[in-house]
């Protein structure tokens, strides 16, 4: 999808003003943290598992060349094919070629953020192939022609009224008077409408939560069963996954799986955690005849060895989104691309450039809640700060801020001057603000006062008062 991250402030404004979004995020913002917290309370080893998960990921990235080569060898041994894609264009081309090779008309899709990243659906449609999203949330937003707003709950920004509207508009061969206002009715309708699509699909495309080097397998973690129907029924199963999804062994996958569902939805384990290895076997009576893995780089290898390498540990659990006060205020669309919230603030500039995505790492109060809930302990605020350092060094910061900061820093390195100026400011603002105790407006402070009053200073600086106190003490002790 084309990024709109440059318009972050306008997008955030629209999000803040949207009453449907406010209600929807209100539900999500309380539910997810509570459920995660309960799940963790039931597992005493959770903290230790975070360290174990971090270690597995760090080890894998430090030896990623070895594990990718081992993975490919084992995919091939199981009868599958790995297609290496340096960028989005190569990934799209690889998927299209496979689809064309079997004359595919309909393609079912399980939820995949990297498929969004490479803008796969548009490309298939332009080439005469119909992609059908089957995850309920993805299906709803596909009908509404909008991007996902959350990496595991794509339609989280909607209330059920919007879903009803979308279904009435799209499912025109059903009785227009049918009752579909409640969630069970909407789910039943989606199930009924999508079932024939599953059965008719020529190709099924899924993402992967993990790729296991030891066995050449892909693992998907879902709840609906759509991913499984997508990858089992059609003749061809294509996995689209980025490089850093690799883990060394099945045991390593088990450790990370213990972290994933708990961090994402507060479940002990997802309803369906499925491992696939190659196409159907000789004696199988169902399953795909072909198994392909499109392995996508698209900027990941460039992150290795730099300040953002730790971001490659990300499990895409969305715990950081769910606990972020900025995300839960503005929603995912404000971030303008595929990956919102704190993980999006770090990853998006790495993938599409800081010129486009510059607002994202700046729109953070560094509260640190994201890092505290990350199952693999990614230091998200630190990496957002690294982006800010790059912007400052490259003079991408607005001149008024840059020069204001430089001036302030210059004075701050001269304590005598600084103290004198602070005392003047304290006296002036203290005097002006004494009667009311606060300012409704203040020159040069429009950014502050548009949203809140500015409390007035007490009228003296601490250093001035302290110096007076010291002089008084000295006089009293006769020094």
């Amino acid at each position, binding site marked *: 999808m084309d990024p709109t991250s440059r318009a972050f402030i306008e997008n955030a404004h629209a999000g803040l003003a949207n009453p449907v979004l406010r209600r929807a995020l209100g539900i999500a913002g309380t539910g997810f943290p509570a459920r995660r917290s309960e799940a963790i309370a039931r597992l*005493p080893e959770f903290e230790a598992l975070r360290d174990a998960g971090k270690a597995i990921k760090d080890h894998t990235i430090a030896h*990623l060349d070895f594990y990718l*080569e081992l993975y490919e060898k084992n995919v091939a041994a199981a009868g599958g094919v790995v297609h290496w894609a*340096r960028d989005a264009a190569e990934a799209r081309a690889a998927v299209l070629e496979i689809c064309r090779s079997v004359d595919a008309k309909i393609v079912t899709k399980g939820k995949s953020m990297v498929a969004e990243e490479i803008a796969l659906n548009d490309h298939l449609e332009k080439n005469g192939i119909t992609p059908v999203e089957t995850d309920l949330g993805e299906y709803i937003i596909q009908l509404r022609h909008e991007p996902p707003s959350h990496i595991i709950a794509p*339609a989280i920004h909607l209330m059920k009224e919007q879903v009803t509207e979308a279904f009435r508009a799209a499912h025109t061969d059903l009785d227009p008077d049918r009752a579909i206002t409640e969630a069970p009715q909407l789910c039943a309708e989606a199930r009924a409408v999508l079932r024939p699509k599953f059965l008719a699909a020529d190709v099924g495309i899924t993402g992967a939560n993990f790729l296991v080097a030891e066995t050449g397998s892909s693992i998907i973690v879902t709840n609906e069963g759509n991913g499984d*129907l997508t990858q089992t029924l059609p003749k061809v199963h294509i996995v689209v996954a980025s490089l850093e999804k690799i883990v060394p062994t099945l045991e390593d996958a088990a450790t990370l799986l213990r972290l994933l569902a708990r961090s994402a939805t507060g479940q002990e384990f997802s309803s369906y955690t499925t*491992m696939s*290895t190659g196409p159907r076997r000789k004696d199988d*009576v169902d399953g795909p005849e072909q198994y392909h893995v499109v392995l996508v780089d698209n900027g990941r290898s460039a992150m290795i060895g730099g300040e953002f390498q730790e971001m490659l540990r990300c499990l895409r659990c969305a715990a950081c989104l769910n606990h972020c006060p900025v995300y839960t205020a503005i929603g995912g669309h404000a971030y303008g691309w595929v990956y919102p919230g704190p993980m999006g603030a770090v990853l998006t500039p790495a993938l599409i450039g800081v010129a486009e995505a510059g607002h994202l790492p700046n729109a953070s109060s560094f509260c640190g809640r994201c890092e505290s809930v990350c199952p693999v302990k990614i230091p998200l605020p630190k990496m957002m700060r690294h982006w800010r350092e790059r912007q400052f060094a490259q003079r991408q910061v607005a001149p008024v801020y840059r020069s204001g900061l430089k001036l302030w820093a210059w004075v701050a390195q001269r304590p005598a001057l600084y103290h004198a100026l602070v005392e003047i400011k304290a006296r002036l603002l203290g005097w002006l603000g004494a009667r009311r105790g606060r300012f409704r407006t203040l020159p040069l402070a429009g950014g502050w006062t548009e949203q809140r009053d500015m409390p007035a200073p007490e009228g003296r600086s601490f250093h001035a008062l302290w110096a007076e106190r010291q002089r008084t003490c000295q006089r009293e002790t006769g020094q």
Partner: protein
Amino acid sequence: MSARDDIIGGIRSGLGRPALSEAAKGGLAARVAAHRRNLVPARAASLDAAGQVRLFVTMAQAVQTTVVRIASDREAPAEIARYLAAENLPAELRIAPDPALDELPWAERPLLTVRRGKAEAGDAVSLTPCLAAVAETGTLMLTSGEATPTTLNFLPDTHIVMLRASQVVASYEDGWDLLRTRGALPRTVNFITGPSRTGDIEQKIELGAHGPRRLHVILIDDAKTGRRK
């Protein structure tokens, strides 16, 4: 240069080193071959066999799996007939083409229509065996194969699973070890924890999104016979 070479080269240059030495690769290969377990929670691992079975039942029921215990597999057709009637479901069943299931006394339930094979559109209820059950989270482990088509786990509205108590293991790691004893990996390994569900509409959980809305486990108490090797 191929895309593969470019990507691998990019990774190596990021890591600041060339390709690993044969010795280093050997070390990593040995690490993979050893597939050591990382920390396994004590929750199930600290229990004895009977405790693990009880834990499996508790965890499974917590995610809306229904569990019924019977003394021997001979009682399964009667239990299935009872279950379908109680759920107001038609007395029809698609069973996995597994010789062990074939041998059940279906003749005792002549009103139960039993078909065999992979799932077809329109099948309402399936019956499958499973490889193991993980007590830690109430999770069933099923594998694809000639006798166990994967579609039986997903297409029908109701999925019934036959599980012997001796198949209950503590952790996923125990499941991996079991899988490794059976030769080459199957196409599909399903870890199933409860029926299909979604929270995509206002975060309210609805069962039966695309997969089965009912998951029913028939647990055969073969504890007296001890764990099978």
